[in-house]
């Protein structure tokens, strides 16, 4: 049992990271912390792909002419794309947080929902009055 866990320690680490990331996204009210959580979550997926590409005793997949065992390069390539997507998401998310802070004066979800509630109520009052 223990050996089975230790043999796959990389997967356990990835699952651990994944759950940490997802938990932060769900539980934190701070918009920046949510993005941090999202990043941890995405990074764990990058690691998952990299780890499945590794072949035991394999070298880097560079063409040397000699028949050797080498790691599967495809997951790395895929993850390069996913990293780019992740960076774009982070940049966009942070840009949105900046704009949210400019118009709401806060980056805490609770404060924002209070002022949105207030805005919605004032709209209804304006109509009925």
């Amino acid at each position, binding site marked *: 049992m223990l050996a089975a866990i230790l043999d796959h320690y990389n997967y356990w680490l990835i699952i651990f990271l*994944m759950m940490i990331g997802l938990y932060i*996204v769900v539980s934190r009210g701070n918009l920046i912390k949510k993005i941090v959580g*999202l990043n941890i*979550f995405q990074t764990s*997926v990058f690691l998952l792909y990299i780890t499945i590409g590794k072949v035991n005793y394999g070298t880097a997949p560079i063409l040397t002419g000699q028949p050797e065992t080498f790691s599967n390069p495809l997951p790395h390539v*895929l993850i390069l*794309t996913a990293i780019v997507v992740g960076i774009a998401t982070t940049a966009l*998310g942070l840009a*949105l947080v900046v704009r*949210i802070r400019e118009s709401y004066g806060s980056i805490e979800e609770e404060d924002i929902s209070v002022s949105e509630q207030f805005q919605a109520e004032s709209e209804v009052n304006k109509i009925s009055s």
Partner: protein
Amino acid sequence: MTNWLHHIPILIVAVPLISAPICVLFTFGANRKAAWLWTLLVSWFAFLCAIYLLNHVLENGEISYHLGSWKPPLGIEYRIDLINAFVLLIVSGISAVAIPFGRLVVDREIEPDRQILFYTSYLLCLTGLLGVTITGDAFNIFVFLEISSLSSYVLIAMGVRSDRRALTAAYNYLILGTVGATFFVIGLGFLYMVTGTLNIMDLSDRLMQLADNKAVHAGYAFIIIGLALKMALFPMHVWLPNSYTYAPSLISIFLAATATKVSIYVLLRFLFTVFGFSFDFIPLTLTFIFLPLAIIAIFFGSIGAIFQTNIKRLFAYSSVAQIGYIVIGIALSNTIGLAAAVLHIFNHALIKGAIFMAAGCLVYRVGKLTTDSIRGLGKEMPWTFSALVLAGLSLIGIPTTVGFISKWYLLLGIMENGWWPLIPLIVIGSLLAVVYIWKIIEVAYFFPAPPDRAPVSEVPIELLIPLWILIGCNFYFGIQADITIGIAKEAATILLDNRP
């Protein structure tokens, strides 16, 4: 000439992609009109390509296009059969009608110096949606899904000029959309781990022998949940109402008509082509998870819509309900049910496109769209409101409209499976739609206009023509339904072909 036509499958994606950075160049002349014209030309080009592809597929069967002449499964393959040719037509068609509508509303709703960048993001969003639909490579789906999602977050956030809540709506969509897409990638990772391939056809072949593999089951669960988030199936719909409400009008039209539909297409592709019932619990998940969620979605969405005071928000809730109808069709998983799902993807795009276009006309004239701000407007804006009422009838499912055709086929599919208790539920769902459409009719036609309001005139003809084209389609395809029904039935047969 024939050589050039052979490359249409890549051109339909590559032309919008390359024209996006070219569109940025218009900032140097600050030429907003040129940027709009450019987007219009690209949209129409994509629409023509989609018509060509659909015709080609109808006549000659599937197209398999190899990118850079690398043979699949090693190279990336664009594979077009009837289903995705049809979805391509929906996406590019809605875009081709929405952009002519867009110039005036974009001028009104977006800051002048942002408009060119707005059209650039729009082109990227179009690229993403077309790419997701056309590609035959599973990882490619993820990349295009993210292109379309990232650009739609930007586009939704651009509604900030009219309401700051567009920002939080875009932020929430970004968080949930990214979680959904990441779940999808985790699932693909599991499938790749076991099969060593990402080509959809190849995956489907290899998964046939791996029905008992635990990693495949885990991958299935991750992919399904990720896609359910993207298509806003009931408990995962929370991002949708605010996004559609606060987005600029053009984006509400485009996203409401196409974005969730494309995710549903990917779900169909994975459920039926990739997994293809290779293991037993796919039918179980359809019956015991998707079906109940779809029924809750219909009731939650319709009842939620009744209580809204913002009209765009009302129709956003109704979109949640309509996703429910499509998912019921999928859950039936017989030919008629799937045909109903494919039909409703098309029909709902026409209905919601028309409705959000009418809403866009109202925003153009009255700004904030609450039920009180449209009081008595029915007489002052007769063309807009009659369009809204006709599209509403189509949403309810009155005979001679497209809404009726898809609901009729849904009922036929239910009867074929003998799931009788569902029939009253669908009828009640339609009656709830009557309630929220009536609410708008009542306010617009039977309430007196507030005395202190300045007279409102009808919107310019430039906005009415695209709106009435869509209304016309709603009735044309409701009466001449043979074309769409034929395609949908054939598509359903292709999807179910993989069943052992």
